């Protein structure tokens, strides 16, 4: 038995390394976990236990570059994190549980998490007992390398606090895990602010917006006031945006003027018009046009596929980006504006020489929060100089691009989860 255990140690040892911060951490981003068959709880169904653990792992995945997948078939030595319930002497562990009260669980550096089945573990939102979800999130934090944190509100507090409705990981906990594993980075297909018009109780029309980031087949709602994504995101694209193509889109454009209020999604050589009232893509609009339509039909002179696009309300133009060129499209004239296409560098010159995306922009995004346009490429972005910037610094070129910054320094914690976790 000791030789077998020693063998497990040697196979697992290379998975950990000292991260750049000097702390121990997993050296890979996809971690496999399993609820051990000999360690089921007697208090919840197996399916409940597995669901809670899936959710716990997903919560960490939502705030870190780590992905977790439940693996019930691989050899045990390939499992990174093993979970189980036990009482007293349990699961070959050298640390006894103490019975009902005080210690409810512990975690070992090789990835084992043990829960004291003498405690009254309950499912989330039950209101009584000890939330298994909360304990699991805490112990997973230890496995990932976090120590106890004494800050009120931290999930890594050593003492258990009774059920809080919908507990989540706050800013400091997120930064703690990102200190070990880094932030979440990646390219986006498109970013946009979705406009909604609502009427107050007094009949007044107010404009509300929400920010969305899209990547491949999923999307996030970004809460600007909270500097994070919505809890529980990402969501599968088809859930929130019915009728738009799978695999992601190239661009989103909202043509919003006195006369028009149209939303378009672009992918490949086609585009879709979105029915804001019905919350799904049109198959046929009020004018009788069927969708998807060819870009060349709806926007003559614009090539396809495009890299990205955005609508400039100041000039009533849609700027389409493709490679190193930008195509200014006059929506009123329904044709390319005079002089286009032009080089992106000429329309959006660099403020600092050499600091420019050049071409192949991933997303062009007008933000109502910042009242500015951003060009995103890779993991970085450039902010377009606005009128307020030029009022303060008149030497800035019109539509100039300010120096590059990392996306995750402006929009935080937009993290992938494993595809298996997309549908809980």
């Amino acid at each position, binding site marked *: 038995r000791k030789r077998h255990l020693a063998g497990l140690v040697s196979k697992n040892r290379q998975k950990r390394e000292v991260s750049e911060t000097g702390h121990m951490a997993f050296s890979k981003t996809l971690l496999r976990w399993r609820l051990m068959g000999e360690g089921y709880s007697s208090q919840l169904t197996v399916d409940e236990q597995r669901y809670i653990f899936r959710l716990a792992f997903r919560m960490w995945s939502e705030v870190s570059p780590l992905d977790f997948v439940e693996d019930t078939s691989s050899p045990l030595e390939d499992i990174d994190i093993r979970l189980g319930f036990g009482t007293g002497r349990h699961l070959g562990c050298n*640390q006894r*549980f103490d019975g009902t009260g005080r210690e*409810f669980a512990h975690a070992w*550096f090789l990835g084992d998490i043990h829960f004291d089945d003498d405690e009254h573990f309950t499912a989330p939102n039950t209101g009584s007992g000890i939330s298994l979800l909360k304990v699991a999130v805490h112990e997973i934090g*230890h496995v990932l*390398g976090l120590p106890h944190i004494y800050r009120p509100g931290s999930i890594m507090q*050593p003492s*258990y606090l009774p059920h809080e409705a919908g507990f989540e990981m706050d800013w400091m906990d997120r930064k703690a895990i990102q200190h070990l594993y880094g932030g979440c980075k990646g390219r986006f297909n498109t970013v946009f602010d979705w406009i909604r018009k609502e009427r107050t109780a007094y009949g007044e029309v107010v404009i509300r917006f929400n920010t969305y980031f899209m990547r491949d087949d999923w999307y996030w709602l970004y809460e600007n006031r909270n500097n994070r994504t919505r809890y529980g995101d990402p969501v599968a694209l088809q859930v929130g945006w019915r009728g738009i193509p799978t695999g992601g889109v190239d661009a989103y454009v909202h043509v919003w003027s006195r006369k028009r209020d149209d939303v378009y999604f672009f992918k490949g050589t086609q585009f879709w018009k979105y029915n804001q009232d019905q919350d799904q893509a049109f198959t046929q609009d009020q004018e009788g046009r069927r969708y998807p339509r060819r870009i060349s039909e709806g926007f003559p002179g614009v090539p396809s596929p495009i890299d990205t696009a955005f609508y400039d309300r100041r000039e009533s133009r849609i700027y389409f980006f493709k490679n190193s060129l930008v195509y200014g499209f006059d929506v009123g004239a329904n044709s390319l504006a005079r002089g286009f296409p032009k080089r992106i560098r000429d329309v959006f010159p660099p403020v600092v020489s050499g600091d420019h995306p050049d071409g192949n922009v991933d997303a062009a995004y007008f933000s109502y929060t910042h009242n500015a346009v951003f060009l995103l490429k890779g993991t970085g972005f450039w902010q377009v100089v606005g009128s307020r910037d030029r009022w303060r610094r008149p030497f800035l070129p019109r539509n100039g691009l300010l120096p590059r910054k990392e996306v995750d320094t402006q929009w935080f914690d937009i993290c992938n989860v494993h595809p298996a976790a997309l549908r809980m």
Partner: protein
Amino acid sequence: EKLFHKRDHSDVQSGSSHQAELITDKFTAELFLSRYGFMKPVNWEEIQFHDADDADSPFTDDYLDDVDVRIQEGASSQNPRVTAQDVGPTPAQAQEFTSALEEFQRVSGLPVTGVFDEATKTAMNKPRCGVPDKEVELSNSDDSTAVDTFNETVRTNIGGGNSSEGDIFNFNTTDASNDTNTNDTDDFKGFGDVINGTHDANTDSKMENMSVNVHQNEPNRR
């Protein structure tokens, strides 16, 4: 099966033997603080055994009258031969306990009094994670097992002559390789630090190996 009678299992019972031992006094509080890293565990390398004929020995116990340091961990409150209360803390140890208590009070958001008061007792008895709050420092480790149990070999001088072959220091013991050790009285449920020592009087050397099983569950230690 845990006994219950109601349909919704709301009256499920735990056996009284499965209740965690409460922190009720300074001794159990000290064990708590040691377990979770607020105090250093007993460093067995500091144990000095002197000749049993030493008339200055304060101990009267036959087995332990050659031990001149207070045994903190692993001693059983039911052991008639030795208890921590029998020997009392040294001033340094009392200060260490006070400092550890203050640290615990500080991180727990309690008034930092250095006194084992009711609020501190309540806080210690709250449900908590079994991972220590602070690293437990040890001199060396042998991580040949997958559960992070390591044996620390402590070399001590043992006075010869008065010990018999096979004498076992009478502490609670658990053997890491034997999960069903009946000697484990487990008086400190969940605390687990134990020693297991034997003395072989036939050896010429006055050096004695004491194997000490100390476990820690710091997830960031290899």
